[in-house]
């Protein structure tokens, strides 16, 4: 308890610590937002709630890590992870997701939960249960007498993440496929009548989602660490973000992503690093409860 109070008072004595926490949080939050955007995309278009989202992220990280170990320059890991995860996403869609789209929501939730367990275990068998990361040989920038350190690697990571996000948004706005995806999200039956091959749209959307997650994972492995069983916490973060922001609300997803990144960093600072997982999950419960109270208000209650 004393330690917690000490950590809190540190925030007030040295306001610059806040700055460091927020910068860290925003950097990592940008990556959460990417995974959440993918989740919102799949959720909105085909009404599948993908609990294997985080495992796609981790798998992308391992793809980048694997190629880097084979001598590929680290930054190429991101596009490679994008492509490899695209293919894996397509296979997963064909084998599993395509068969649960029309079913009730719990079915897709449970099927993807099974998928998540499977993927985590396969990665565990292939790569072992140690944490892994790619060390980039860049300097670290220091500000405020060294209180705030910003590794250039993290800056590169954020830049990559934002350009990926911009690319995806432009694609969704401008391209034919993007328009077809948005049309299907609004009304799949109408889209089908208008001659859109929704089956193709679904497959494309899911693969795109896996690819986005994979790229995010490839960035995470450069700035953080990955481990086969970290997937579920990324899935939960993605759910927190989408639940807080709502579907089809892109600015909301980005804001919630950054906010959750910052909130987690604050939590880790105050309560200690051991609580990081717990904080991610508690945020989920808080967001769900908030939504519930909001809902009650709409449905009126007196007692």
């Amino acid at each position, binding site marked *: 308890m004393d330690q917690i109070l000490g950590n809190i008072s540190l925030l007030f004595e040295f306001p610059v610590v806040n700055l460091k926490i927020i910068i860290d949080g925003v950097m990592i939050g940008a990556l959460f937002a990417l995974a959440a955007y993918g989740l919102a995309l799949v959720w909105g278009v085909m009404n599948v709630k993908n609990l294997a989202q985080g495992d796609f992220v981790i798998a992308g990280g391992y793809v980048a890590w694997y190629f880097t170990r084979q001598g590929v320059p680290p930054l190429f890991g991101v596009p490679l992870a994008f492509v490899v995860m695209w293919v894996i996403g397509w296979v997963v869609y064909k084998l599993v997701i395509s068969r649960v789209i029309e079913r009730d929501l719990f079915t897709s939730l449970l099927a993807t939960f099974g998928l998540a367990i499977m993927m985590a275990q396969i990665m565990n068998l292939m790569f072992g249960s140690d944490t892994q990361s790619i060390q980039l040989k860049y300097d670290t920038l220091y500000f405020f007498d060294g209180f705030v350190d910003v590794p250039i690697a993290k800056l590169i990571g954020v830049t990559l993440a934002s350009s990926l996000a911009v690319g995806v948004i432009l694609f969704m706005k401008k391209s034919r496929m993007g328009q077809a995806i948005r049309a299907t999200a609004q009304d799949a039956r109408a889209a089908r009548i208008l001659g859109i091959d929704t089956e193709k749209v679904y497959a494309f959307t899911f693969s795109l989602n896996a690819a986005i997650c994979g790229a995010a994972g490839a960035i995470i492995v450069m700035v953080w660490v990955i481990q086969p069983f970290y997937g579920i916490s990324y899935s939960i973060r993605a759910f927190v973000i989408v639940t807080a922001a709502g579907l089809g609300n892109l600015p909301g997803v980005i804001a919630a992503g950054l906010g959750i990144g910052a909130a987690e960093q604050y939590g880790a600072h105050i309560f200690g690093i051991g609580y990081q997982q717990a904080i991610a999950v508690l945020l989920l419960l808080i967001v769900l409860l908030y939504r519930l109270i909001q809902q009650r208000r*709409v449905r*009126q209650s*007196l*007692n």
Partner: protein
Amino acid sequence: MSSIIDIQSVSKSFGGVLANTDVSMKVEKGGITGLIGPNGSGKTTLFNSIVGYHPIDSGSIRFEGKEISKLQVQNIARLGLLRTFQQTRIYGAMNGVENMLISLPHRKMRFFDSFGRNTKEDYERADMLLDFVGLYEKRYLQSGSLSFGQQKLLEFAMALMNEPSVLLLDEPTAGINPTLINGLIDRLKKANTEFGITLFIIEHNMRVIMNMADTIYCLAHGKLLAQGTPEEIQGDQRVVDAYLGAH
């Protein structure tokens, strides 16, 4: 007769669209009150406001003198104010008798009663009411396999099983085979006279409503347009205009 439902200047809008504006009406205890109006005139909205599906913007709704406009659906239902749905809602996987037994008035049960089994009287009452609506022969069939009209009759029987004091019916004759409508009118009247249930009915079929109701209210564009006995309503030029779209 005294009024059992008293609606005072109720307004309800959905994002700028005024669904009900300053609507006031009274439902007389023990009577049959009709609610008519062209499509989109706010009839179902008013029903939903009464039974608690959404909050109202302003006004007051009283049931047996008690303000209910802020209560939730199940609390209102437990007062004995029940509604049927325009799109029928029954338990399709269960058979008719099971549907009836589910509809036992839980508000009259103490918590420990709910751990009891259904009594012989419950079964007899279920059979009697199923017979009353003409579904006795089909009572052990899976109710989802019944025709739409039969499902509607089953929902009506379920509502009666619940022993409500007021029953709100949303278009009871819609989708029912025209040859069966006369029978349905008789049953509704009987439910009113024999079981003593006050009825408040939304109905599009003029012949049906003119035949049953003591008092009729007509809504148009969310506002109360006219009220009176069937004869008065039939003779009211504004009502005729509203239905012809001249309003």
